[in-house]
């Protein structure tokens, strides 16, 4: 797992391997540390992730809530069919702004940041 803050406003977390109840503990902490700073926009790169289940969804949903509370947004990059399926059937794909590519996900966050008519659903509280 790598995590970095880019351009101050944007936190990027890149996950590899499997995200489950065991590895999830570290991911949850990483998100909390990122969001405790000024970062309100979160890009989660799952291109190299092989597995996700409800634990991972829960952590991402928590990150989304937090981001919006801070006036930001979350976006997820994910292409693998088995992960997309978990996002889709759980109904979280839209809420987490799951996109096929890094650039698309970044565009979602940038649009929201510019306060424009983002294609991101869900408003900041």
């Amino acid at each position, binding site marked *: 797992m790598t995590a970095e803050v880019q351009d101050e406003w944007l936190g990027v977390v890149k996950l590899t391997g499997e995200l489950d109840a065991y590895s999830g503990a570290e991911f949850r902490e990483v998100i909390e540390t990122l969001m405790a700073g000024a970062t309100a926009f979160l890009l989660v790169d799952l291109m190299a992730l092989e597995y*996700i*289940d409800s634990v991972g969804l829960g952590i991402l949903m928590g990150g989304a809530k937090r981001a919006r509370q801070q006036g930001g947004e979350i976006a997820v990059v994910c292409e693998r069919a088995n992960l997309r399926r978990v996002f889709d059937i759980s*109904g979280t794909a839209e809420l987490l702004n799951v996109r096929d590519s890094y650039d698309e996900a970044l565009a979602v966050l940038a649009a929201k940041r510019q306060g424009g008519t983002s294609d991101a659903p869900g408003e900041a509280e």
Partner: protein
Amino acid sequence: MAGNGECVKLVIPCHPKYVAVVRLALTGVAARTDLTVDDIEDVKVAVSEACTNVIDHAFADEETGDKRPPIEIVFYPRDEEVLVEVTDEGSGFDPKRVVLADDVLGDKQGGLGLYLMQRLMDKVEVQSAPGSGTKIKMIKRASR
């Protein structure tokens, strides 16, 4: 949903550390069936949800990891399907009182595990009652 025929049994400590082992063993068992790679991914999630539920819900917090009885997972690989049974000796629950999540967006995040199991598998049977442990039986048929 009868568990008969050849089977592979796995017994793991009630700890998140070992759920990945269940997925690996499943991969090996399912490779000997007609299940596709995508089918197997579905079963991986469903079985992990069942195990995570045992770890999260089957025991009171006072019982620490070592004192908890283990989780038993049995795979019955058949030509065109796999039957999986996940059994714990925990507190049990009343399956009728568990509301499935149709809205996972709200504050209530409960119910996502059983919901995913039901969506990802072809059949799910919950045998549980308060005080007498839980057995989840699930079947995945090979898609074609």
